């Protein structure tokens, strides 16, 4: 089996396989459980110090009126007021909606294009390995550095993008203000994200397509199933768990989207591209409303965590079919 049913189950499998080694008990040196502890503890300690401790601190802060720019002011507990303010703040709901919009469109575009590319590459034309490597380059780059450079490409007066679109469509470049136009700016970000991350979806889809054994197609051929029929009743369902895994990983990542948006539009024009992470950053590092920002952070984390868990359950169901 090429894909784990879920990440969690993979872990369970491995543990089930690891039977205690009786030999170890008879040799000199530390006992096995002591060694296991020595091996695992440093990594866990570091995670506790730099991940869990801050998380607990954030939970604590979310119930206070602490402001990080006034470290000496008295800290008061405010109960659930921060949560109440976050959940009733129309700006935050707007940011969540913007985020959902980005996640939706980037996933649709990346899945459709990524799967199509994977399907074509799976034809194994001459030189496919080389071209696959070329396509994979964008996703290895830094989103911030790439976003900054795309800002240059998008410039209406001097940028290559506006020039190319204008050349193809005849629309004057002054009308192609990708980052300054309220209706175009969200798409400017969706285009860059798709350029960058389609290869990611493609790679996972390709693994899915390559995991389908040939004999299934051979059997279908014997039954004289049409190519169309084979595609819809073999290729797509067999590759579906992989596609879903790609969507899960992209979904989590794009929910946290920050660097590329910061560099491309900074949330503007106005606030049309202000995603959750940017609102959070503003609350925390510009308004210095640390308590409220922490409450928002906790809500975000719970949302991602909850959605991801529901999704993994769905993924497991698809896998078991």
């Amino acid at each position, binding site marked *: 089996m090429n*894909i*784990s049913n879920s*990440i969690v189950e993979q*872990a369970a499998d491995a543990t089930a396989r*690891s039977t205690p*080694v009786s*030999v170890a008990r008879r*040799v000199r*040196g530390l006992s*096995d459980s002591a*060694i*296991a502890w020595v*091996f*695992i503890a*440093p*990594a*866990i300690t570091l995670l506790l110090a730099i*991940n869990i401790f*801050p998380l607990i*601190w*954030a939970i604590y*802060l979310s119930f206070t009126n602490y402001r990080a720019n006034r470290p000496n002011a008295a800290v008061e507990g405010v109960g659930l007021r921060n949560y109440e303010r976050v959940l009733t703040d129309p700006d935050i709901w707007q940011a969540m909606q913007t985020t959902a919009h980005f996640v939706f469109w980037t996933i649709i575009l990346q899945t459709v294009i990524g799967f199509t590319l994977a399907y*074509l590459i799976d034809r194994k034309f*001459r*030189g*496919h390995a080389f071209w*696959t*490597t*070329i*396509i994979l380059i*964008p996703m*290895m780059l*830094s*989103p911030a*550095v790439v976003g*900054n*450079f*795309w800002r*240059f490409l998008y410039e209406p*007066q*001097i940028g*290559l993008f506006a*020039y190319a679109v204008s050349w193809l469509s005849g629309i004057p470049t002054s009308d192609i203000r990708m980052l300054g136009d309220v209706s175009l700016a969200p798409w400017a970000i969706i285009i860059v994200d798709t*350029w960058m991350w389609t290869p990611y979806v493609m790679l*996972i889809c390709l693994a899915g397509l*390559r995991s389908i054994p040939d004999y299934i197609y*051979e059997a279908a*051929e014997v039954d004289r199933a*049409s190519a169309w029929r084979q595609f819809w009743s073999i290729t797509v369902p067999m590759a579906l768990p992989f596609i879903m895994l790609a969507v899960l990983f992209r979904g*989590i990542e794009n929910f*946290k989207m920050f*660097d590329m948006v*910061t560099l491309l539009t900074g949330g503007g024009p106005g606030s049309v591209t202000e995603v*959750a*992470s940017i609102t*959070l950053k503003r609350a925390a590092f510009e308004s210095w409303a640390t308590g409220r*920002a922490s409450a928002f*952070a906790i809500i975000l*984390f719970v949302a991602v*965590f909850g959605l991801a868990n529901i999704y993994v359950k769905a993924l497991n169901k698809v896998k078991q079919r």
Partner: protein
Amino acid sequence: MSSANAAHSVVEPSLASKRVAGAIVILYALITLVPLVWIFLTSIKSPPDSISYPPKIVFAPSLEGYCNLLTTRTRQTPEYIASLPAPTGTCDEVTRKRNMVIAGPSNFLPRFVNSLVIAFGSTFLAVFLGTLAAYGFSRFRVPLADDLLFFILSTRMMPPIAVAIPIYLMYRELGLSDTALGMILLYTAVNVSLAVWLLKGFIDEIPREYEEAAMIDGYTRLQAFRKVVLPQATTGIAATAIFCLIFAWNEYAFAALLTSGSAQTAPPFIPTIIGEGGQDWPAVAAGTTIFLIPILVFTILLRKQLLRGITFGAVRK
């Protein structure tokens, strides 16, 4: 999906379908490359050429962007240059000979060095801790192993900005704000989750009989780990290291929020390169090019392991 690709042999698509597929994929790859090629071309343009309209595809190459990026000299006017003593560095010499305008002292080199130190430092630590933990999880019965592994993974679901607030406060207390050490520890913590998951997969694949044989021959558990398992896991460790390196190299959010001066890395720095009247695009492009080159090399080296690395080892090829 063209249904015309009705393959006559199931396993082998027809030549025509291969050609069509090839043509589409190559077209996509070429379009993908355009922005990257444009970054490189801009880096060797002179500032006026870089912002001319229509965009110039044919131009006289100039090293001005790289000079502006790497110079440590302050901004120079022609009169000032005439009054200066003889040039001291190659960069200065080129600049002088070609009458280039130098935008001012650039911090790119120290930022680039910060990127190197932080990326390599955190990678080394993450791989070291990750290898130990992965071996622990792979070979021993660890209480609550599933929960621990899932916990390790879930630390990645948090938006960086969310953890940045308390880390910012914590670092302020500990004096770790804007220090390379602070960033190394932070990136190590982020990367260790990936390292444990990936390496556990690699170590699971090494038959445990090897160690058992070694231990029967009188090795202790630690010796068996060092002399039998580690050499077998070299490829996996190398691949994991490159993934950690790429993450730490590319990271922006933490770097932008937690560093401002001495420990700033290249990703938050490059967008701030300003020249005369706005962003100095050739210099930005030069910085971007230099910054991207290691990643291009790693991508090519890693292409076989790529899938595993980007999916936490959840999908294997």
